[in-house]
């Protein structure tokens, strides 16, 4: 569940600053997440957590600071660069293709072509794709509707699962990657949130580093190993979940409680 001390963190940000003119969206943020670790990024609206997540995903370039992936310095010019470095982000809008089925959605961009001349013409081996997707979902411990079910006929929780799985399989592998989740349970009910939680934990167990931005304190306390709280662009807390409680965290979020680093 936690990284061994000898390994470099999967993702490490040092002294990240983000200025927009005179506004300091992020102020000297240090952040790290290890392989197999789930870190929650908390904070009130405008605290900067979405901005920080976007820096991690390559959507924003920080004004200053360093980013290291598996110990190596990187500079993301675009989200594509981040993807190549092994970082996948799941946005709130999920971006699934409603009219197509689960298997097609999961395999978009990495289709399996048929062998032989049909393959040269671009024909897809849909059976093989379905089998592969089923295996991948099994590995993640996810059971979902049939691979041939169109995504539009899934419930909100199932869709979230498909979106998560789509990114998760792209970061699973020998060198497990980093998964960034933006409000993964924002639109979900209680039971569906539980399902997503289980999936996140299973992914962490497979070595994927997960960063979750969320407003949902219960989710954060349940599923995260560590919590990082931002307040007005500054990091005010970085603490193991087991070492803190609801009141403390709320205090950090609202600013009632003094920063750990003051």
């Amino acid at each position, binding site marked *: 569940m936690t990284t061994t001390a000898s390994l470099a963190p999967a993702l490490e940000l040092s002294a990240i600053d983000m200025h927009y003119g005179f506004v300091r969206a992020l102020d000297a943020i240090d952040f790290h997440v290890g392989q197999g670790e789930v870190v929650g990024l908390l904070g009130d609206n405008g605290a900067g957590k979405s901005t920080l997540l976007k820096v991690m995903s390559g959507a924003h370039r920080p004004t200053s600071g360093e980013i290291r992936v598996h110990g190596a310095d990187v500079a993301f010019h675009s989200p*594509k660069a981040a*993807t190549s470095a092994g970082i996948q982000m799941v*946005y709130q*809008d999920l*971006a*699934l*293709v*409603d*009219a*197509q089925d689960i298997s*097609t*959605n999961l395999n*978009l*961009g*990495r*289709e399996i*072509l048929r062998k032989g001349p049909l393959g040269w*013409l*671009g*024909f*897809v081996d*849909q059976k093989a794709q379905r089998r592969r997707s089923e295996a991948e979902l099994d*590995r993640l*411990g*996810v*059971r*979902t*509707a*049939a691979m041939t*079910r169109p995504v539009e*006929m*899934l*419930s909100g*929780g*199932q869709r979230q*699962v498909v979106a998560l799985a*789509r990114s998760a399989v792209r970061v*699973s592998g*020998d060198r497990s990657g980093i998964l960034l989740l933006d409000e993964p349970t924002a639109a979900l009910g209680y*039971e569906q949130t*539980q*399902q997503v939680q*289980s*999936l996140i*934990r*299973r992914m962490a*167990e*497979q*070595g994927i580093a997960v960063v979750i931005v969320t407003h949902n304190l219960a989710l954060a306390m349940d599923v995260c190993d560590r919590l990082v709280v931002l307040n007005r662009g500054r990091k005010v807390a970085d603490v193991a979940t087991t070492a803190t409680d609801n009141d403390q965290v709320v205090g950090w979020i609202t600013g009632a409680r003094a920063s750990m680093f003051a």
Partner: protein
Amino acid sequence: MMNPELVSPSEARMPEPGSATPATTERDPLAIRGLIFLRDRGIVVLFALLLVAFSIWANPYFASWNNATLIANAAALTAIYGAGVAVGIICGALDLSIPGTAAVAACVCAKLITQGQPVWLALLAGLLIGVVVGALNGLIALRGFNPIVVTIGMLSITSAAAQLIAGGYSIPGLTKLQFMGTDRYLSIPAPVWIAAGLFLVGTLFLTHTRDGLRLMAVGGNAEAVRRSGVSAERYKVLGFVISGVCAALGGLVTAATVTEASPEASPGIIFTALTAVALAGVPLSGGRGSLPRVLIGALVLATIANGLTIKGINPYWGTGVTGMLLLASLGLEKWVSTSVSRRLVASAQASVHSGTR
């Protein structure tokens, strides 16, 4: 690395599925399946009904092989344009430049033939026109302009180009194109073969090839495609190119049928093609659609026009009937969708852990 035993401890921490019914129904309830059947195959039912109705009403002239080939021939042309319109809509763009592309392609081909060039070269040139116009449409639309407006502009440009190339008059005497016009093979007119071939290739492409699936995905949710690391923009342009090629093909087949290439870009083309596409249930919002249904839509239109003309009724009435059918089919589609959603929600014990449904 993927230790299967890791799965079990986490499963032990899973909460019990809240839903009461553990019964894993393998298929959706009959009602839902029935409604979906109606939505997907309703147009075939409509077509069958029309055939029966006209056979009785326009007896004995309607129900004959000759008449069937006549209907198929008329439908073929609408279907070719319809394929272009459908692919455009699926990709998220209504391509209104189709009549202009058809005219330019026909005129270029005719001009080359009358200048003594070999027929295959002239046809190839015509199809290339479709590719070029489509690519231009796509690239300009990518810059952020509204695709409908872009294609309207392209319609003006291509119409003018057709007039210029043809010198203002139709180019007659294209008897060399008869092999793809009024000639019959196995008693079936050439355009029917061409349309059938186009639809076969098109359907396979959209449903079974990587690029076709990605094309449909771009229409459904371009962002999803981008997040998968695929260039959505490239596929949007491809959609326009396909639309342009279908338009060019339609123009060439029309010219072959009448042995004359007309530089008049007939806007009626868009009307009938769009009607066929709408009858086929292809939503204007894009992302989904079935080409075979477009073919049936074209057949429905041709059947109505044919039946009414045989009975001596002004085909304008046919347009009215078609319009009403269209509204009825839209209403039916909406009703079916809401019914299906309601029933799915009611029957959804959708838990990730309750297995397949």
